């Protein structure tokens, strides 16, 4: 059995990611190494009642993100959570981060006993629940906020209209963490929630590059198709990120980047010339790489 550590808010080891969170856990229990939090992190979340499609996508995303050096954050639950971690653990590329609702000595769900152990050894397993705490239902929404707080972006793979993912999404939005969703069949109840997110303007994930770009990493590109567009400079990247995934006006981009409109205009013109963004009637939107 591995040792279980704990840090409190006033501890110097307390993760800096959480310290400024407005709902930071007062005390955090963890197994593994806190260094897992240092690289880029993406949360992959979704329903326990997933479809084959969802499981496949979650596994693949987890794998490809890990290959790209991104730590996958998830809740170790059945379904999507587990699939994502399974995929991430299948390559030794990056640490994985598990955030659970029960005490760290109470393995839940039991079926994920092996995964539980693997996550703790290859990455980090955290919980705010005291040792011995049972997986009571109310602990999971609370757990979800930590997932959102730890992630650079949240990807919803599959979720039902009323599901636990909604808590994570709300917590992410609350923290200005970008939320992405994987489109699913409109006839599938398991995709109703994630499709709803897309309808509401959430950025879609059709491949891992979409996620990588959302957290400001270079798209993995070359494997399937090369993005021949010249990479945007730092100022342009910030503007590109500020455009987000919905059409934005000059005013809103300027507000989001905190840059005067004149400077934003220069960046936008460059982005447009290089094919990263385009303007329609004054509204700016990002462009997909040319096929």
């Amino acid at each position, binding site marked *: 059995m591995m040792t279980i550590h704990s840090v409190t808010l006033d501890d110097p080891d307390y993760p800096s990611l959480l310290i400024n969170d407005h709902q930071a856990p007062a005390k955090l229990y963890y197994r593994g190494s806190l260094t897992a939090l240092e690289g880029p992190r993406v949360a992959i979340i979704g329903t326990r009642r997933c479809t084959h499609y969802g499981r496949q996508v979650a596994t693949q995303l987890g794998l490809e993100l890990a290959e790209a050096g991104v730590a996958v954050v998830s809740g170790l639950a059945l379904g999507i959570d587990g699939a994502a971690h399974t995929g991430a653990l299948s390559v030794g590329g990056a640490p994985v981060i598990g955030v659970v609702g029960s005490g760290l000595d109470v393995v839940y769900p039991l079926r994920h006993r092996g995964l539980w152990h693997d996550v703790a050894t290859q990455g980090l397993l955290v919980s705010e629940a005291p040792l011995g705490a049972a997986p009571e239902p109310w602990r999971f929404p609370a757990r979800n906020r930590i997932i959102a707080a730890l992630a650079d972006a949240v990807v919803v793979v599959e979720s039902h209209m009323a599901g636990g993912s909604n808590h994570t999404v709300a917590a992410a939005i609350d923290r200005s963490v970008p939320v992405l969703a994987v489109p699913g069949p409109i006839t599938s109840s398991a995709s109703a929630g994630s499709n709803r997110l897309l309808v509401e303007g959430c950025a879609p994930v059709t491949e891992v590059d979409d996620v990588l770009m959302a957290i400001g990493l270079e798209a993995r590109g070359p494997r399937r198709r090369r993005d021949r567009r010249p990479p945007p400079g730092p100022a342009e990247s910030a503007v590109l990120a500020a455009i987000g995934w919905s059409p934005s006006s000059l005013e809103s981009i300027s507000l989001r980047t905190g840059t005067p409109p004149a400077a934003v205009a*220069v960046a936008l*013109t460059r982005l447009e010339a290089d094919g990263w963004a385009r303007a329609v009637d004054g509204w700016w939107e990002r462009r997909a790489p040319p096929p």
Partner: protein
Amino acid sequence: MIATVPSATLLGVEGRPVDVEVHVGIGLPGFTIVGLPDAACRESRDRVRAAFLSSKLPWPNRKVTVNLAPSGVRKGGAGLDLAIAVGLLAATGELPDDSIQGHAFIGELGLDGSVRRVSGVVAVVDALDVATVVVPRECTAEAALVGRHDVHGVGSLRELYEVLVGFDVWPDVATTEVSPAPYDGPDLAEVRGQHVGRWALEVAAAGGHHLLLIGPPGSGKTMLAARLPGILPRLAPTQALETTRIHSAAGLAVDGLVARPPFRAPHHGASDVSLIGGGNAAMRPGEISMAHNGVLFMDEMGEFARHVLDGLRQPLEEGVVRVARAKATVVYPARFLLVGAMNPCPCGDAAGPGGCYCSPAERLRYARRISGPLLDRFDLRVLVSRPDVGDLLGGAPGESTAVVAERVAVCRQLAAARGAVLNAHLTGAQLDEFAPLTHAAERVLEHKLRTSALSARGLDRVRRVARTLADLDGAPPAVDEHHVCAALELRAALPRAEAVA
């Protein structure tokens, strides 16, 4: 016994000289005014008589005939009262003939013998070709603006009489300048957020570029536009004269000289005649002429009738409007800064792209209300969105009108030093001379032209705006890349004809 006194009345924007001939002869006592006087003019008979008696001047009990020459032109208003009274005094021998030599008189008489102000004094005085002009005391400063005459102000008929017969001297001409009334309109500091809108407003004012604001209802388009006159510089004396004349001709209450740029905001139900000028009986300047040297704000531009909007095209290009009617053709000055405001689509589209519930056909119809040629005349087209909540509640107030006005004034002086009135009026040749492009700026424009994102005419417009932006940015001799980029971005917005993905 006959006396002729020069005076003038107002016709349209211009003053027309009128010679007031007074004949006092034998016959039944009576008083007749001929020469196409209107009602106010004809009633001057009673005012003059009462004023004489109140001023203890002798009233001739003889036949008095007043002719207003040229007799074929209609005369209006009460401004000839004073000239009639003086003519009468001269004709009855109360005044020596030489005392009124080279004098013209303008003013309305009160029954107590006081001399009251008349409107349109500037234009009226300007029409007079005499050495000395006597006007109501309140109008002295206004009349002096013309600058070609000796101007004397009088307060009453008795006072004037005493001076003319030599008992008294002319009262001191009130040399007080028309006091430069400080700007007291709405202040730009009240506009929260709206960084792009404020920026566009400043550029519009600095370079005289027409501005189209596109945004959902409640986003502050009107609020921004109403603050434009405040950041425009005060009118130069000649401009002020022009505008004052137009206002008095249009029957607006002209209260002294129009020293600040006028702000006209006609309702979107306006007819083409009310906007452009005309009418059948009396040719009257339209809203665009009343906005001469100022701002014409057209709120809800998409709701104006299309032929009304297209009537703006010629004046926008030429700075004057030629109104031709069967009876007369009149040229009204109409050089104004056009500010349009409209919603992106009929539903207002408060939710931003994707949130609109208009059908594509409805959107297209709305966008087409403003024809391409008119749209093209807007150098600046920007999106105005609802301000950020943080800005609304306790955000730091933006720059005040005074601060921005100062920068605008500097920029306008730069343009004037180049020999162009405003950057928006720079010709192609002047652009090459005064707004050369740096290599980087050239590349940006070249790319835009190659991808057909910019037309040849659009190119010149972008270069003019870029010049203004450069002027606001320390006035480097050459226009740089970021000026061009900003200029392009400031004319990007359009009403949404098609859905944004």
